[in-house]
């Protein structure tokens, strides 16, 4: 059953709960799922399904073992590609996909690149911070990132000195991290930069260099006092622009690329009410009518991570992570190496004539069991066992309205041959609708 139009601005609870709703939830809030996982979530009911996403679930022993050795290997080898592979492993195999999605969201929000930082442990620590606070408090996150070693290196904080303030961090704090353009002045940036003087890195740790800190009086965002960095962060969080800015960010990630003003205002109010506790905010958003509204289905363009990790999860694969790292970089989302301080623009910029061709090549390779590891043969046989199973695979893979358009995929008789099954799968994954979520 398709959702009823007209609910697109409402954050009150959605009432229906269908296979398509469950698949939508796992595509948008998770990182993709197999038809069986969608069926399991359907069985749980909407509220319980959302609860399972927002509340941390225990990871398997195998996951934890792999997580440990991949993480350690990235540190030991000092190879950023191994770090990327570690994170991709988490995304593909975690039972907490919303946490990884939010970690990715914060990685893009507080975009920091290894290219300049040059330290695997520092990038790892930052990523851990994003994950710890992925569904936690944005307050803690903003305070944490202000003292994060990778961020301090990235924005040249060691050159932010009492008599020669460096405005990089103060500027990005207001423009990109908390307020957005138009909600502060150049004078606010200059004054805030003074508050962050002396926030340095020493021996790979945060160090408050008291001798380089400007303890004088500053005026920031209409308030005057001998502010330090923590106080400036709090001043930013107190601004009405802050929850609005975050509401737009969340809605563009989970609901629509162009959120309406009422929807932004509603979600901003929720964020303020929850005091930036994102577990509560997301619980409300993922249960809302707006999230499941018909006009919001299939309107977001999949990011490279959505496409690759989503495909691996859809097909239950244990992929070759090295190949996955390379293809994501080729498709424009090179983890730990975002292009600028603004991160990836996302949405329509993900698709170019070049990346669309590369996306098609990627799904073709997966369908043919090339480069990215083999799908388990038993799983493949099960997925194609009957027309109804194939229909479930289609409904899991494609966003709203796609099932009707692709009815021929299920209606046609499918021979049991392996090659024909691969061709069918390639056709499914090559559909334009598969680029959307």
């Amino acid at each position: 059953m398709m959702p009823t139009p007209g609910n697109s601005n409402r954050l009150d609870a959605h009432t229906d709960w269908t296979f398509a709703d469950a698949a939508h939830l796992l595509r948008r809030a998770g990182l993709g799922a197999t038809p069986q996982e969608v069926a399991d979530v359907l069985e749980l009911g909407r509220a319980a399904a959302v609860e399972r996403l927002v509340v941390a679930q225990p990871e398997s022993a195998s996951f934890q073992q792999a997580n440990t050795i991949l993480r350690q290997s990235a540190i030991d080898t000092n190879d950023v590609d191994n770090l990327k592979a570690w994170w991709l492993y988490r995304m593909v195999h975690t039972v907490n996909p919303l946490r990884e999605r939010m970690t990715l969201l914060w990685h893009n929000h507080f975009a920091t690149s290894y290219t300049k930082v040059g330290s695997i442990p520092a990038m790892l620590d930052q990523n851990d911070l994003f994950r710890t606070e992925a569904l936690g408090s944005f307050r803690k996150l903003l305070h944490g990132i202000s003292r994060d070693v990778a961020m301090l290196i990235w924005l040249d904080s060691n050159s932010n000195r009492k008599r020669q303030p460096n405005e990089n961090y103060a500027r990005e704090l207001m423009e990109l991290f908390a307020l957005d353009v138009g909600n502060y002045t150049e004078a606010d940036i200059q004054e805030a930069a003074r508050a962050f003087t002396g926030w340095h890195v020493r021996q790979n740790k945060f160090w408050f260099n008291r001798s380089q800190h400007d303890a004088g009086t500053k005026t920031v965002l209409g308030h005057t006092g001998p502010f330090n960095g923590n106080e400036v962060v709090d001043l930013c969080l107190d601004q009405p622009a802050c929850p609005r800015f975050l509401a737009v960010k969340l809605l563009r990630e989970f609901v629509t690329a162009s959120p309406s003003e009422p929807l932004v205002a509603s979600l901003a109010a929720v964020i303020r009410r929850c005091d930036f506790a994102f577990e509560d905010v997301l619980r409300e958003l993922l249960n809302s009518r707006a999230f499941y509204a018909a006009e919001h289905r299939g309107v977001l363009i999949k990011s490279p991570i959505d496409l690759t990790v989503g495909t691996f999860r859809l097909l239950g694969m244990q992929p070759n992570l090295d190949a996955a790292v390379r293809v994501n970089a080729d498709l424009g989302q090179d983890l730990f190496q975002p292009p600028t301080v603004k991160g990836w623009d996302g949405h329509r910029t993900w698709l170019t004539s070049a990346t669309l061709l590369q996306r098609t090549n990627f799904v073709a390779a997966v369908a043919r069991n090339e480069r990215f590891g083999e799908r388990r043969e038993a799983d493949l046989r099960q997925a194609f066992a009957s027309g109804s199973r194939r229909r479930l695979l289609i409904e899991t893979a494609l966003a709203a309205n796609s099932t009707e358009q692709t009815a021929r995929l299920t209606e046609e008789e499918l021979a049991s041959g392996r090659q024909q099954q691969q061709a069918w799968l390639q056709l499914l994954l090559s559909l334009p609708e598969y680029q959307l979520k």
Partner: protein
Amino acid sequence: MSRPNRPAVFSPSPSARPHRAAQVTPRFRYWSLALLCTLTLLPLAALEVRAGDSEPARTASTRDVPTFELTHLFPGRPIVYAETRDLKRALDQLQDSEFYNSLLTTPQFDRWRNSKDGRKAYAGRTILETYLGTDVWTAGGELVGDRVGLAVMANESSRMPSGMLIVRMADVSTTNRYLDRILPLLELAEIEQLDWDLPETRGWSVRGRLFVGTRGRWVVLASQEQLATFALERCQSESGATVSSELAELTGVVDERVQPARLLTAVADLKTIRQAAAPEIPLQADNAVASLLFGHLAYLARESSHAIVTLDGDADQLALSMSMQGADLANEPWNSFAPAVGNYATPAVPGLVGGISLSRDLAPWYASREELMQERTLPDFDKFETGLANLLPGRDFQHDVLPLFGPRITFLAARQEYEHLDGRPGVQLPAFAVVLEMAQPDEAADLLTLFFQTLSAILNIQAGQAGRQPWVVSSETHQGVQITYARYLQKPSGERLPYVYNFMPASARVGKHFVIGSSRQLCRDVVDVLQSESGLTTRPHQGFQLNLHSDTIGTLLADNASALSAQAVRSGRTPDEAQEDLNALQQILQQIESLSLESEYENGRFEIRLNGNWK
């Protein structure tokens, strides 16, 4: 000395005249080109296996060779001839070996055994064993365990060359027993019983394309009827000349390697194959290291008259060799072989993992790089020279650097104890060292010292940028030799230090040798060898040697188990599978003693040998 009637030119019937002259046909060209490539590439493929330095094995039992010569049963000179002896002994040894049996206990084998392919293979084996009435090991030993000869000959009456396979089985009753079991199966195919006018002989034709005959303990398969009857006529008279002379006579190759006291001896007439196939063997390589080490193989394949492959082995060793002869590299302007000076054996330092010793005169090879390398690789040489110019300003590599050095270079890898750290790196690399022979020791040593100092300075800047400990260049005297080394300003400490802390560069000059290492201890150990009475041992005529020691490799693997497991997980394995793979590799390494690969060049004969020893 009696000798069977083997005509110089085979003429068993008017319809099948001399076989010596190669009839060149397009299909034959493809076939022979493939064969030539196989023979040429065999040693390259062997490089995939790591290798040691033992001599080729000789088997005691094969000294008692039968007096009858298998080669008498072939009518003319073959293009390719291969003969095996005593395979039953090898099969028995393999079946009983711990190495083989340990492979069967690995989870990987178990997984394959239970896979679709594994189940099919075992089903096929069961059917075969049921049909033959014995297990495959026994059948293998009885069918091909005694003497087998295979010949490929030019065929003027057909587009395809002729082929003959001759097998001498253990005894008549064994031959008949297998015949009785196989014949009903052949009845299902389109076979025709033939009536050959030879005593105690039975013959069949399979669709007129394959002729099978038996006589006593002999089985003959041939692509032409007259070839089969030729062999069957002669196979009963098991007396004749000495073994080696007959093989040499048959193949036209007089060489100590062409003797049948081996598990396998194969000879290919490269000249005839080339004439028949006219293959285009490119001389230009696409990789500088491959060109330096093996570029001459292409030339040898183009110019040599014969290729010889031999396999020897017994209970705990195996030696595979391939040689080509008849081409003189010495006249080529790019020749880098320096057989007159020989090659150094790998110094036996403590904890040796492996080493590569090379004897090559780099100057002519480097000067001829535009002829020897593919066009697209040449810019890499320019990049190399530009990069080197930053470290050695004002020096040209070809004209100022290369002449300072002698032809012998040795690369070493050995376990390290990390005296320079309080703790261990997360990835534990072996210590590396290179021993360079210097033609002009004073000038070369100055140049290398400058190189060492400049490199240390550059790496120090990088270390500072990355927040690592910088190096301080220091020195010590060891065995009267000054060792210059770079120590860390503060001793790095920690359980899983960054991998860059594997390196503590050190260098020393000992007479005409200069040592550069990634560890001070390895540098000291090499100095000990160089200062010892025997010094570096020279192997005459040797051009290349690679050897590996499995026990130290096994220790290294164990030290880096976590990193290797991570690599396996990244490639799509589960953590459990990764651990199983590592365990299996360790298990195999425990059974292997050493592996070596070496090459020699002497008087127009090039030989490459792969030796393996196991416990």
